[in-house]
């Protein structure tokens, strides 16, 4: 089966639960509801042989409603075809069901999304932070988190300070000026 056929059989099996099936440059995408996720994920794995979960990503559409979006990138080893599932998560819900029992690799992907975006996964076996430390109070990939970070303190574990971002993040101005002027880096005196 090709990706298009996989998407068609998904639409046939679930009807209106699979919305907005689109094909763009050979990539198949459809939108599903968060409540149907586990049902559709099981079907994808068992019936459509989409046995490889490549990645789970999350998007913060800050200022829109619903705010968050989670994207599941699926791949079929048997058919060498990709299918992408998208689902919207409103901020007040803040959680979706886990798929870590369907694709075990989702375990760490979901932990990363929890760490970076603050979305929770119902039924996840071990939902801890994976990159930042337990107790870090912010979710850094949210759009309302400043790029330079926020100060935090957890005695004997870790701390963070605001990073100086003079002239913008990682800015090198192309010119013949000295490196001090080309890449401004002011350090607050208290550091």
């Amino acid at each position: 089966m090709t990706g298009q056929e996989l998407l068609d059989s998904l639409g046939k099996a679930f009807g209106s639960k699979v919305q907005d099936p689109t094909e763009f440059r050979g990539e198949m995408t459809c939108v599903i509801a968060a409540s149907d996720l586990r049902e559709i994920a099981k079907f994808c794995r068992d019936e459509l042989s989409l046995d490889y979960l490549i990645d789970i990503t999350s998007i913060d559409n800050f200022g829109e409603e619903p705010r968050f979006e989670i994207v599941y990138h699926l791949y079929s080893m048997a058919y060498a075809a990709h299918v992408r599932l998208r689902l919207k998560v409103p901020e007040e819900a803040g959680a979706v069901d886990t798929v870590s029992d369907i694709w075990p690799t989702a375990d760490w992907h979901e932990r990363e999304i929890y760490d970076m975006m603050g979305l929770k996964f119902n039924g996840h076996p071990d939902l801890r932070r994976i990159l930042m430390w337990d107790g870090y109070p912010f979710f850094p990939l949210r759009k309302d988190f400043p790029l330079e970070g926020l100060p935090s303190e957890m005695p004997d574990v870790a701390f963070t300070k605001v990073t100086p971002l003079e002239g913008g993040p990682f800015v090198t101005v192309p010119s013949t000026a000295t490196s001090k002027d080309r890449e401004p880096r002011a350090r607050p005196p208290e550091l």
Partner: protein
Amino acid sequence: MPETRATAYDSKIEGNVIFTRFDAALNWVRKNSLWPMPMGLACCAIELMAAAASRFDIARFGAEVMRFSPRQCDVMIVAGTVTYKMALAVKRIYEQMPEPKWVIAMGACASTGGMYRSYAVLQGIDQLLPVDVYISGCPPRPEALLAGLMKLQEKISWERSFRNQKPELAEKLEEALS
């Protein structure tokens, strides 16, 4: 001033005696046997390994004994990006090293945070540890690390080691000599 006493010439030992300052002898011993704590945190650690391997051979400077226990180390080479998650662990390892101890900040990240101006990266290990030598580069070549090591050796050779380590004894001696 104490009086200089003439001693009889002893042909048996004369050839084997040198006169020097105590500090100079102590520093000479120290600087030629700097055991590094390889704090390899990112790609700089690869260059650190290259500096230790046969082509560049850090053993020529007496610093080939990389110890993975801080209790046996003299100089911590912070090679790589220090994240906030790792920062206090680095500090703790530094505190476990016995005195006297030195720190080399190897590369842009360890010196200033480098290109990682981010919420997750400590902007220079000098915010936590007293750094003796900074090495530029991203990552620095092994030669640059060797040059940094030689700079550190030069710094050590001018340290007032005896006074720093035994201040009360140094004062007593000076009193007795004056």
